């Protein structure tokens, strides 16, 4: 009896490694779909369970009235800061638009032009998701939220919070849950621009959870306190989403680029609710290639 079963541990370890290898080779697609379909009812219960257990711990936390009050004030402060930055961004953009209009008017003096404000845009109701848990992989910065493909969520969609603060991108979706790769994840890369100096670079996460902006040329001037927002370059993310504020600038003679440490605008560990932007259309690759041609 004992002899007959000795192969089992080896078989299990091999099966797990095979699963990993198949996933990496992209051969798990149809099987993944089948598993997702078969486990959907279990997952629904699982999701509800996660939500309820999460709620239980949240209730315990809510009892700590003083802490909640500090958090509320902190959030209010963050929201006001975000609003301030958003208005600044809007002002710069509006200024550019007005200058372009003025140029157009000067170039076309025979036209009769009437100014108008945009009074309404085709607003979409974005899925609002609660953060139900964190990834069980402690070496990655992911969040689990309680919306999934049933709610129209797809991989790559941007996730924001507190107005226009970039939280991350959808990395994996199941019918009822989605995994958000936070901007401070070590594998995250976001094209960014500094609001005041208009210096461009890449905002990346580090293994310790910090946020840095890299690929800034040595002759560029970066000021502490400047704000990094998404540049929209590459077409994968909307422009103007807030990433963080410049905390310090590092440049070594031997390095090709300057490195800027950013202070995130949000404490990702304390997020409760996030919003997924579902109607953002990434720019097709062909158009980007064409626009890049001289």
């Amino acid at each position, binding site marked *: 009896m004992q002899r007959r*079963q*000795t192969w*089992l*541990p080896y078989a*299990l*370890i091999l*099966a*797990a*490694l*095979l*699963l*990993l*290898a198949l*996933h*990496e080779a992209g051969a*798990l697609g149809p099987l993944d779909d089948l598993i997702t379909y078969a*486990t959907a009812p279990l*997952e629904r219960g*699982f999701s509800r*369970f*996660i939500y309820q*257990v*999460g709620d239980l*711990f949240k209730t315990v936390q809510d009892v700590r009235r003083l802490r909640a009050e500090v958090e509320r004030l902190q959030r209010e402060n963050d929201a006001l800061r975000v609003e301030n930055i958003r208005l600044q961004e809007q002002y710069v953009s509006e200024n550019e638009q007005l200058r372009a209009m003025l140029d157009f008017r000067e170039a076309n003096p025979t036209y009769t032009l009437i100014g108008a404000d945009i009074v309404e845009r085709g607003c979409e109701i974005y899925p609002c998701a609660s953060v*139900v*848990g*964190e*990834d*069980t*992989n*402690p*070496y*990655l910065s*992911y969040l*689990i939220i309680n919306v999934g493909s049933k709610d129209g969520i797809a991989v790559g969609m941007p996730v924001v919070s507190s107005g226009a603060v970039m939280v991350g991108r959808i*990395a*994996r979706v199941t019918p009822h849950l989605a*995994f958000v*790769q936070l901007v401070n994840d*070590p*594998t995250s890369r976001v094209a960014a621009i500094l609001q005041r100096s208009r210096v461009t670079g890449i905002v990346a996460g*580090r*293994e*310790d959870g910090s946020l840095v902006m890299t690929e800034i040329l040595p002759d560029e001037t970066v000021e502490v306190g400047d704000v990094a927002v998404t540049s929209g370059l590459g077409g994968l993310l909307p422009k103007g989403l807030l990433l963080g504020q410049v905390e310090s600038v590092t440049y070594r003679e031997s390095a090709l680029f300057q490195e800027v440490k950013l202070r995130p605008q949000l404490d990702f*560990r304390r997020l409760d609710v996030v919003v997924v932007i579902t109607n953002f259309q990434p720019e097709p690759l062909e158009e980007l290639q064409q626009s890049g041609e001289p």
Partner: protein
Amino acid sequence: MSSLYFGIPILLVGSVLQSVWLERAHYTFGRPDLVLLLVVTWSVIRGAEEGALWGFTGGLLMDVLSGSPPGMWASSLALVGFVTGQPWGQALGSTVLRLAMMSALGTLLGHSAFIALMLILGYPVDLPAAYAEIVGPAMLLNFLLSPFAFRFLVWFHHRQRQAAR
């Protein structure tokens, strides 16, 4: 195999608690690995085969709650269950002492295997920080919590034995 009838619900609750509660606690003082602890405890009580089975099952549940590729936790925890349930562990002394030492050893082994897989797959891992901030505190916490896990699972072990008679 029959231990999975109650093993799956226990491991399911363990993985959910790990995700919604313990992964958030690690920012302040490190966090224990609940599923890993259950796997080590069961393998010390019941041996390498059942340990590997619980490790594989618990690992799959952990993989479901992770954005990383499936199979990473399953292979790491199956290995932990297999190693910590080996008969040579009995030379370490009484069951409680053996369990405490195996919990620390299993944590080190499980995380090392997991980190190795991450590095092989191209994920960046800051090794000194990972061992100092995640693996080290987890070894200590799992070591301290092992008697509680033992008392909890040994009850199921006895119940199952009685039912089998």
